[in-house]
């Protein structure tokens, strides 16, 4: 299908879709003044339900990135300037809905790209849709790895870009160095996979994991887990926390009450607590504990400050930016760069063009690797009483992403490379 034909069909179906659903991105504030064409992309996050609190921040960031690109002259393809329009769909915190809305965006709206997802469960639900239609999903969240699809581009961290450096830091250089580990998480795929990796890593470092427990989603009774932690770590130690959302509030409030605090030698390293969550839980419960991310709002560079200030100017001065938002911001720009490099919106050409693209992100330079993940800088921070991270450590440069984990026995020795037809999703190196 030629681009123009595809484009005309796309436009007409968008017009149809917009007139039916009435959600055709009509609320864009800053357009592109000298553009001579339009392209419509899909944004698919939860705007209702449990995940809405987190995912709506990504929608805000993606809109901001699109507006910035439009204001700077849009996307330049084949001598034409394209203004980006968007269709926002609501995944409603319900995983089958994500798959259904993906189908709608791909087949009915004919969008060239979808930016979407947060939970691993939603990504797993969407994956077959994109693979069967050979479409392209950009997914912005740090996740457990062990996946490498030709039809997904992952801009969040893999475990070796977040949890592995964090575990090493806690075991070797934190105030609780050498002490035993306890693993706490919500009961679903990300915490369980992430903790399997952590257990293998702690073993190879020579440390011990004295216990682990998972809180069923929707349950906030943390008393038995706290009793277990006190029993397993009588003299302090490291707690690796992969709890989700509201469960964190109950957990941190109540561990403080029984004296599981940094002052008593207990240090919690959390993988899902960023600036946004700190302000919800309350810094008074979190200060002194740790977090690991690629981007932290306190990074003191021009690019980082500009990103944070633009976001505040666009959405309100009380808003914060955090790692998932930075990932969401990057992926819009990376898609633009890939389209301009390919000179077309065609999926396969954009996918080929994507690998090797470099971008000066708010966190520093990032580069798209052959396994459809990003090389990123890893930072370890301690939470301060003002609700920000004090950055203690930062890798010298971007860390290469490993889609297949090298601590986990089942995936050890495997890698992913989509630029080489003989290698693909999973090959032994």
């Amino acid at each position, binding site marked *: 299908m030629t681009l123009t034909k595809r484009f005309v069909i796309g436009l007409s179906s968008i017009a149809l879709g917009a007139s039916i659903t009435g959600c055709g991105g009509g609320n864009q504030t800053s357009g592109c003044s000298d553009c001579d064409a339009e392209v419509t992309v899909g944004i698919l996050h939860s705007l209702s339900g449990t995940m*809405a*609190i987190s995912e709506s921040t990504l929608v805000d960031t993606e809109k901001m990135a699109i507006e910035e690109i439009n204001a700077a002259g849009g996307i330049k393809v084949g001598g034409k300037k394209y203004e980006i329009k968007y269709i926002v769909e609501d995944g409603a915190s319900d995983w089958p809905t994500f798959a259904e809305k993906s189908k709608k965006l791909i087949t009915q709206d004919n969008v060239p790209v979808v930016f979407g997802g947060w939970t691993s469960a939603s990504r797993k639900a969407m994956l077959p849709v994109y693979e069967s239609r050979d479409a392209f999903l950009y997914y912005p969240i740090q996740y457990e790895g062990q996946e490498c699809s030709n039809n997904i581009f992952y801009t969040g961290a893999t475990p070796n870009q977040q949890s592995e450096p964090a575990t090493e830091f806690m075991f070797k250089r934190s105030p609780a160095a050498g002490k035993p580990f306890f693993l706490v998480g919500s009961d679903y795929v990300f915490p369980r996979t992430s903790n399997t990796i952590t257990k293998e890593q702690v073993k190879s470092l020579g440390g011990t994991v004295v216990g682990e427990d*998972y809180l069923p989603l929707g349950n906030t009774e943390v008393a*038995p*887990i706290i009793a277990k932690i006190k029993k397993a770590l009588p003299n302090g130690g490291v707690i690796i926390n992969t709890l989700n959302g*509201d469960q964190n509030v109950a957990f941190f409030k109540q561990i403080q009450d029984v004296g599981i605090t940094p002052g008593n030698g207990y240090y919690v390293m959390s993988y899902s607590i960023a600036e946004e969550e700190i302000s919800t839980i309350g810094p008074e419960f979190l200060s002194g504990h740790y977090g690991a991310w690629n981007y932290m709002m306190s990074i003191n560079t021009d690019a980082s400050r500009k990103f944070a200030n633009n976001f505040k100017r666009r959405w309100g001065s009380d808003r914060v930016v955090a790692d998932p938002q930075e990932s969401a911001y990057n992926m819009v720009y990376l898609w633009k760069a890939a389209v301009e490099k390919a000179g077309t919106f065609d999926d396969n050409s954009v996918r080929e063009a994507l690998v090797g693209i470099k971008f000066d992100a708010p966190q520093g330079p990032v580069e798209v690797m052959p396994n459809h993940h990003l090389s990123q800088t890893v930072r370890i921070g301690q939470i301060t009483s003002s609700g920000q991270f004090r950055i203690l450590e930062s890798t010298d440069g971007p860390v290469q992403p490993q889609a297949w984990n090298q601590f986990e026995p089942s995936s050890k020795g495997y890698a992913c490379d989509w630029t080489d037809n003989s290698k693909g999703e999973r090959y032994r190196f």
Partner: protein
Amino acid sequence: MQLILESLFNGVAIGSVLLIAALGLAIVFGLMGVINLAHGELMMLGAYSTYVTQLVFKTPLLQPFYNCYVIVSLIVAFLVAGIVGILLERSIIRRLYGNPLETLLATWGVSLILQQFVRSVPLAYASGFIITILIGLILPLIIPKKVHHHSRAYVVKAGVWGISVLFGLLSANWLATSISRIGRASARNVDVTAPMWMRGGFDFLGITFPVTRLVIIIITIISVFSVTWFLNQSVWGMRIRAVTQNREMSECLGIATNKVDVLTFGIGSGLAGVAGVAVSLLGSVGPNVGGSYIVGCFMVVVLGGVGNLLGTIIASFSIGIMTDLIGAGRLISIWPDMPTPLASTVDFFATTSMARVLIFALIVVFLQFRPSGLFPQKGRMVEN
């Protein structure tokens, strides 16, 4: 000894959260037979009332009394949840008495509406709405009786509601302007911070007792005693029990069953509000907070025996103690030289998820042998 004491405290702490959450339901479902799936959302309203009360106590005027906002919020939460409960009873449930399936569906719908309500209506205006109804209901009680029987009573009625709407709007406006945080709608979870004296814990016999948990246990004990006293000693309590046992007979004897229904439902809902205060002290407050408790509430009431308060109390404490014994793996520490096969079984169930599975399984087995729970109700009601 220390181990057993710690385990017992933990079990009682978990059980008292279950009990305070289920107490209102024990009345609504137990005494009235109404399956109220919106019970969790009434708890949520109680939790949000705590949040608003806390913010009001942060304004300069009330700042000196900040430390006792929890006590005030108990009353506020009881009133708010109680009033919403009464509105619910008068508008929907009253029309569905005797149709348990329709009640179940209708109250589930109400629970969804309430969840979306707190997401999309700014808390300041929601508070104004509640204040309007509160004044509108209380004001007529103060006005002398003979005014009501005047030929122009409707003027008085209109005047009363006019005043309450005015007051509601004024207070909503004041709240929205002086506390900017609740002036806008937000789907975001909010956080109730306990006053300083409720933070931390105190050590006794080498065990740390968290103060919040102790406060919740005390709230639960007071609520249970007041409910028991009310049902057994007061005139209205006696009427409630009479209507529970035989509605037609009570009606014949001149008991205003309509009023009794409103009162019973109001008290049950108000207790859900009190539970909301307790829950807000432990975790965060959000539109979904009720959903995580509703299953536990029904479980406790069914296990205890519908219509029996003592059963509810025993059921919640036994579930609490079992959760702690199994989920925290305490059985092994209490009996260290357990035979290996048994120990590995116990170890297998010593996670929070598996403990829940096991407890549900045990309850199912128990109900096979005693389908009406621990204390089955005897008498006329059972025959109907």
